[in-house]
């Protein structure tokens, strides 16, 4: 797959081959191949429940694949030992869908958390770094608020400041755009681009906000039902003749990508009313 667009080995930061993963009976990935190029913004899009968050967790080594390989910066993630995995994770930032801020610490301490855990920097230096990161997400004035006092969108921006605190080599965004008003959305889109280019990061964006994501990503993978159904630059995907990709990019309700979680026939299901199930 993707031989034409396939960059050479060292340009690929995350290389996924023949990835299989299932939750019980439910097959989530059925043989996925992905290349995340270094220094670029790559988007992974797909309908809700296809396993985008799961894919990020596989890359971060929180879940183990049933089969296949997940390589990050040349290291095979599932076979790393604990210490090696933790070293690798220091170089990966991840922005959780929910923000995942520590609720017993205020905004400032949340952003300072990774710095205090992993560096021996003096408190004055930590302060400068934290304020810089908070300034970047526009929340320097909110540093004394507790997570419970933040809106969902603000919490996600604080989490972003925290994710970049250690200046990682790559950052994974899980749905960064949900819950952002148009202004902070615009600022966030620019920020992701800026961080990526200024800090030389590699970014992976998981999202179903097609417009915003397509606008900033260099390369897009569309996954559905455990398979990569299309990939290419945003322009190329716009002109694609794959029905799957078109349906998704244009947001059409009808098409090959199902809106429903796998289920037995609707009519039969209703008629079965007698036997509870």
């Amino acid at each position, binding site marked *: 797959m993707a031989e034409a667009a396939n960059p050479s080995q060292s340009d690929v930061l995350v290389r996924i081959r023949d990835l299989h993963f299932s939750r019980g009976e439910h097959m989530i990935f059925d043989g996925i191949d992905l290349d995340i190029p270094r220094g670029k913004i790559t988007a992974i899009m797909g309908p809700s429940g296809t396993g985008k968050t799961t894919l990020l967790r596989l890359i971060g080594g*929180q879940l183990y694949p049933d089969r296949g390989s997940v390589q990050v910066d040349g290291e095979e993630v599932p076979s790393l030992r604990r210490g090696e995995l933790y*070293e690798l994770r220091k170089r990966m930032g*991840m922005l*959780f869908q929910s923000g*995942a801020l520590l*609720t017993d610490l205020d905004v400032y301490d949340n952003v300072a*958390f990774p710095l205090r855990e*992993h560096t021996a920097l003096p408190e004055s230096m930590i302060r400068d770094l934290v304020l810089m990161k908070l300034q970047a997400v526009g929340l320097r004035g909110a540093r004394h608020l507790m997570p419970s006092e933040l809106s969902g969108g603000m919490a996600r921006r604080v*989490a972003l400041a925290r994710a970049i605190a250690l200046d990682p080599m790559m950052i994974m965004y899980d749905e960064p755009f949900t819950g952002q008003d148009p202004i902070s959305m615009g600022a966030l889109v620019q920020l992701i681009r800026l961080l990526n280019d200024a800090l030389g990061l590699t970014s992976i964006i998981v999202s179903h906000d097609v417009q915003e994501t397509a606008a900033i990503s260099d390369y897009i993978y569309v996954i559905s039902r455990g398979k990569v159904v299309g990939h290419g630059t945003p322009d190329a995907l716009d002109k694609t003749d794959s029905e799957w990709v078109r349906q998704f990019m244009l947001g059409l309700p009808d098409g090959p990508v199902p809106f429903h979680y796998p289920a037995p026939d609707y009519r039969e299901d209703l008629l079965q009313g007698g036997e509870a199930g």
Partner: protein
Amino acid sequence: MMLEWVRQLGRSGIDFFEKLGRGHLFLVKTLAGVPEVLARPRLLIAQLLSVGVLSFMLIAISGLFVGMVLALQGYNTLVDFGAEESLGVVVALSIVRELGPVVTALLFAGRAGSALTAEIGLMKATEQLSGMEMMAVDPLHRVIAPRFLAGVISMPLLAAIFSAVGIWGGYFVGVGLLGVDEGAYWSQMQDKVDFLDDILNGVIKSAVFGVVTTWIAVFEGYDTIPTSEGVSRATTRTVVHSAFAVLGLDFVLTALMFGDS
């Protein structure tokens, strides 16, 4: 029908042993984080304050009342034999050997244990633990180990407070209200309460209860199904399982310590 029942039984059995295994693995991994915690005493002190302070007033007040009740009950029995001078011994032995460690552990499980489970369970449900892992911080070392250690350290201290306050409550009722001779209350106690046999064994008991109840509390929190219902069930389980574990172990320990005397 029968077959289904047997199958169900088998499944619960497997689940039980699976959980037991997870619990032990969890304990080993948590203990591996203890040196890290000792190197950062601030984490530990924060938890000691939160765990200890949570339970301090509750345990002190309970100890006072338990001591007072013991004195009343003991006096009524002893006075028939004209042995009310031994009231101090009766109160002290009951509390130091038995009620101090056991009641403290039960109260601790209900107060601090359930709070630990709920806190850790909610951290899991809101992805805080997962988030920490992705920041290359091991939640077992950073979150669980300090809480576990704080519980293990606080329990014997709380039991000692319970005992001291209880003996004082007994004194208040026995000497103050019922007119037992003050000198007799204290001197008989000093005579008959043995340091090794009674006090040390009481401390050992409360140390064991401390490990077990805190272990149950932090494990139930960590093993929670990450939903609000899951957290509420785990909290209940902490209290129930701790109570069974404490009372059961108390019997075993008492048999071992005082069985042959």
